[in-house]
């Protein structure tokens, strides 16, 4: 298609400026979209939390804050888990709560050490279910090589919570000299994913039972610290890692493009997606690029080391399905572009809220 006319370009420039304006929450109340990981979440975080707590450690909005205590470089993170249903194929809220925090530490380049666990329980919640959740937390902690060292319990009246919510916080130690962060991505870098995308999110959607769809799918929930350690041991050109949770791979790629002021170019054909995830996504009219994973990460690495990084990932059982999906270029900054399988090009933007099943 043709290049835009001057007038069109003026409009486009005006929009671009408007998009860069400081975020402002327009709603009077919190809506579900604020928790979806998309634009609404970003606005809430920047306009309310970042605005109030602003400090250099928080500012990069990485998965974990990294700082030095005495001689030691540490990473600290926290995450709350409100998944429904609590038990689903491939896992439950317990292993999710451990793996989620372990992964936030791991992708920050830290070796996870200790976790906290906070429980908010609804009056009437089954003790048997609680035991099941806690045991899977114990098993997940053992698998990840961390200990749960302190915790808290609150019980609220029936109807004031949905069974069981779990919060975990974690601390880890940074033992290498890599300066990691999405802002360090440079033109010429390669973008990898550690495995097929969207399995967790689709599994949860189907496990709720409302859609009446059956698929042979399991959550991908897993601790990534072993995979990260192997990767960082194999190559020194890793710029950033992010676990692709809420908002999926598309959201992470947008964070990279925005933070580093670069363009991310992705090849649709190269993105690993399991058939069942694709089938369910087509049926529901959603895009797997926006669907959450709980055991997959996006890696930005020096382009010259992409093959070595890919080999390191693939050598680990959790990275067998790793693939190079794209690269970083300088223009147009702040955008994620997709070369479609059909041979066209389009922009992959942040979603406003959760990907909603659509009929049209």
């Amino acid at each position, binding site marked *: 298609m043709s290049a835009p006319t001057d007038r069109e370009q003026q409009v486009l420039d*005006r929009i671009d400026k408007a998009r860069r304006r400081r975020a402002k929450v327009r709603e009077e109340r919190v809506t579900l979209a604020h928790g979806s990981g998309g634009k609404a979440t970003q*606005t809430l975080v920047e306009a309310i939390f970042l605005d109030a707590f602003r400090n250099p450690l928080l500012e990069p909005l990485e998965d974990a804050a990294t700082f030095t205590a005495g001689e030691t470089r540490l990473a600290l993170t926290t995450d709350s888990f409100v998944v429904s249903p609590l038990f689903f194929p491939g896992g439950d809220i317990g292993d999710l709560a451990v793996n989620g925090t372990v992964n936030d530490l791991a992708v920050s380049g830290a070796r996870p050490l200790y976790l906290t666990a906070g429980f908010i329980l609804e009056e009437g919640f089954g003790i048997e279910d609680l035991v099941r959740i806690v045991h899977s937390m114990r098993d997940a902690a053992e698998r990840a090589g961390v200990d749960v060292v302190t915790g808290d319990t609150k019980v609220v009246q029936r109807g004031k919570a949905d069974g069981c919510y779990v919060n975990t916080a974690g601390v880890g130690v940074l033992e290498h000299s890599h300066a990691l962060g999405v802002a360090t991505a440079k033109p010429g870098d390669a973008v990898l994913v550690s495995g097929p995308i969207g399995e967790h999110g689709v599994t949860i959607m189907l496990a709720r039972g409302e859609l009446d769809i059956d698929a042979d799918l399991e959550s991908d929930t897993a601790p990534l610290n072993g995979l990260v350690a192997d990767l960082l041991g194999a190559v020194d050109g890793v710029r950033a890692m992010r676990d692709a949770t809420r908002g999926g791979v598309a959201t992470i790629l947008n964070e990279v493009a925005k933070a580093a002021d670069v363009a991310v170019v992705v090849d649709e054909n190269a993105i690993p997606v399991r058939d069942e995830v694709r089938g369910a996504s087509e049926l529901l009219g959603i895009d797997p690029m926006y669907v959450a994973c709980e055991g997959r990460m996006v890696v930005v690495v020096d382009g010259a080391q992409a093959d070595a990084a890919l080999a390191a990932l693939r050598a680990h059982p959790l990275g067998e399905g790793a693939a190079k999906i794209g690269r970083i270029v300088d223009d147009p900054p702040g955008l994620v572009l997709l070369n479609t399988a*059909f*041979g066209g090009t389009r922009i992959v933007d942040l979603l406003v809220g959760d990907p*909603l099943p659509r*009929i049209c």
Partner: protein
Amino acid sequence: MRFVDEFRDAEKARALSAKITSLCEPGRQYKFMEVCGGHTHTIYKHGLEDYLPENIQLVHGPGCPVCVIPMGRVDDAIHIARRPDVLMTSFGDMMRVPGSGGNFFDSNAEGTNIRMVYSPLDSLKIARQNPDTQVVFMAIGFETTTPSTAMTVLRAAEEGLENFSVFCNHVTIIPAIKAILDSPDLRLDGFLGPGHVSTVIGCRPYEFIPRDYSRPVVVAGFEPLDILQSIYQLMVQLREGRCEVENQYSRVVPWDGNIVALRAIAQVMELRPYFEWRGLGFISHSAMRVKDSYADFDAERRFAVPGVRVADPKACQCGEVLKGVLKPWECKVFGTACTPETPIGTCMVSPEGACAAYYNFGRFSRQRVREASHSS
């Protein structure tokens, strides 16, 4: 995926693209309207415009059932949902469509219970499981979706369910196309007909377009090669001086449509004298309501619905965009006051709306994007 991947082949697209280009008369501009929002979605999702020569422009039509629901109807739905005994069900698409005081999500934040369903039959299941709750299905859609609602009402009647009703907002495509054709400032060379609507209504209802308005119509499928092939067929018709209805999507669309589906609609519903379309105003005989004989299942009769009428925002130029008179970016509020996060007009509401599609996927110079994506 069978019947999907075969129709997404880049090699074949290149060949079709060359054919289409070779059919263009030098110096002539071509404007084709894809009536259906699903086509708009395909066009942007696959980057299809990269295959079209500069002088072919696609105009995104009114065929997005979510986009055309006026604010007043959203307000009415929220009014019903506010009753403490009501649980409303809706397709995901409707959840973010703004009424005058917010959308369904905002309404839920204030206490209503509006749940997403995949099928109207799922609402029926919810009604069976919650006999003390009034379950109201927010029914939207063109003729593709109307039979499903009709079948659901028939089933509810069969089961004698007393706590299920539909808030009927089903619209019909032909009057909308006619409204566009009758617009004095229109310049279109042909239409891509809505494939999935046509599985129900067939291809005959479009015959008035070549006959009375001298514009060719090709009923098109939803994979990108379907759309390219349909554009090719339109170009061949123009080149050969023909003007008729053709069916590119014959693997799915029977020429006469689906008689069983049409019968189900006729049994349960009838045309309204008129209905308001967001951006297009009132169009006569353009929507369906539940017939008297199924009045028990009509939410408009079961609950007192205020029948709110909210004028489209003044600044909004959706009507012009829908008719193809303005391009999305030419609207005064496009991209600044009106964005996907805070949509003012119909075209920005659903990801299929012309403006939302342009905003999300097309707002950058295609040339710049293309160069960038192929640089190494």
